[in-house]
């Protein structure tokens, strides 16, 4: 079986993994003045920064799961590249959410068991376990991480801003080549120190501010 169907399943917004609680910092950005027409730029800037870290982490973890190498250095490398504590917390909570699902889908997977045995694995590691179990290739895994982020922001934008849903989806569509570039860029990575280390201080600040606001719609 090709990995297409499993990819579709994992990329589906209807997946019960708490995706609807996330805005990818868009809520905080909107609160600080980001407008509807700036959402595509916002999405692109995530692809250039936090999403590269998450995708790189996932791909390196996938390689190490398949090679039987320890995952702790990957988790450390990811944490070092994710300086905002609320962002780390969010990824770990989403990792826990996804783990509920993948343990159900792959009860006998040693890869899933290995990631479940880590202390608070981040989401990319759990995705890597699913990919290792389901035969998803590194490039596909990178695509999955990038695509999921685009759709998370697009779908949150409809809750936060006066938008036509067709616009939001066309933004995702227009950024697909960018997502593809990201995926092919991280696919060959195998070592934790290979994981890209870009910085996006504004996203970090938004994440931190958001964690302390009340009356928010989204968890992050």
């Amino acid at each position, binding site marked *: 079986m090709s990995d297409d169907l499993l990819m579709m399943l994992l990329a589906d917004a*209807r*997946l*019960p*993994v*708490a*995706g*609807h*609680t*996330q*805005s990818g910092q868009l809520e905080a950005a909107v609160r600080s003045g980001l407008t509807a027409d700036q959402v595509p730029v916002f999405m692109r800037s995530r692809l250039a920064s936090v999403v590269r870290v998450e995708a790189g982490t996932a791909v390196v973890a996938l390689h190490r799961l398949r090679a039987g190498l320890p995952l702790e250095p990957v988790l450390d490398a990811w*944490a*070092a590249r994710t300086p905002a*504590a*609320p962002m*780390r*917390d*969010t990824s*770990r*909570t989403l990792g*826990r*959410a996804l*783990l*509920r699902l993948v*343990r*159900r889908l792959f*009860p006998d997977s040693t890869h899933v*068991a290995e990631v*479940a*045995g880590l*202390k*608070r694995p981040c989401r990319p590691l759990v995705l890597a376990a699913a990919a290792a179990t389901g035969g998803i290739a590194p490039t596909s895994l990178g695509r999955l991480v990038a695509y999921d982020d685009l759709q998370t922001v697009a779908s*949150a934008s409809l*809750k936060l801003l006066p938008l036509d849903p067709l616009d939001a989806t066309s933004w995702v569509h227009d950024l697909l080549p960018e997502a593809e570039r990201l995926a092919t860029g991280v696919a060959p990575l195998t070592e934790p120190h290979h994981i890209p280390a870009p910085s996006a201080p504004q996203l970090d600040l938004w994440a931190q501010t958001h*964690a*302390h606001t*009340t*009356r*928010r*719609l*989204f*968890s992050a």
Partner: protein
Amino acid sequence: MPEQTTRNTPSRLILTESERESARSNEPTRHGLTSERADSTPSEAARGLRIGVCGPVGTGKSSLIALLCRELSADLEIGVVTNDIYTDEDARFLRSAGVLDPARIRAVETGACPHTAIRDDVTANLIAVEELEEEFAPLDVVLVESGGDNLTATFSPALVDTQIFLIDVAGGGDVARKGGPGIERADLLVVNKTDLAPYVGVDPVAMVSDAGSVREGRPVIALSRTDPASVEALVTWVRSELTRHRGGALVPADPGPMAPHFHAVGTSHTHEHDHQHA
């Protein structure tokens, strides 16, 4: 690196040995869901009773939870999860009511999808419930307040063991008769704020009897926080659900989102099984 934890993202997300153990087994449980559902505890009767509280906006969900905390916290360990649209309004109300340690009240963001968070993707709520259960173990009861939604929202049996649906007399005397999944099939229907009945021109007795006729014998309580007998009836119901849960006799019943339809012979059912309509 030191993990700075934020108010709403608790630090304890470590899987316990028993969680990992239960993840490995995939036995169907008594209600047909697999053991993944009781993620953090090996046995469902061993963990606390999870009670859902839902119903339209302003019918008194938070007040009822505060009331239960006040009445039960002397001898029961309680936790509360809230789902207000703007995250922590309910949590703040409950914290300020001073009836429970504020750390035991957790707000879950639903991304403006209160219905989704209790029905088709209960993950965020389940994680919050499990974290409370882990942190304050052993909890006897966890109360989950849904974000005020419409009359069709009910809890998934994957999230709660039993559920209370609230309507109030101020919403009008017709609400009970109109029915809906929560009104008809929640484990308990509460018709709240009966003290207001004279001011809104509603007959609470008729409202309860309307509700009784669509509920096929399921319990209805006409409640007012100013009426001690009604409060006592509510507390008695909660305690009896807890006893049934501990004895393993409480099987979560899904009120479902579907309205039952009526056949010529007068029997009603929901679409749980396939059949052809002529």
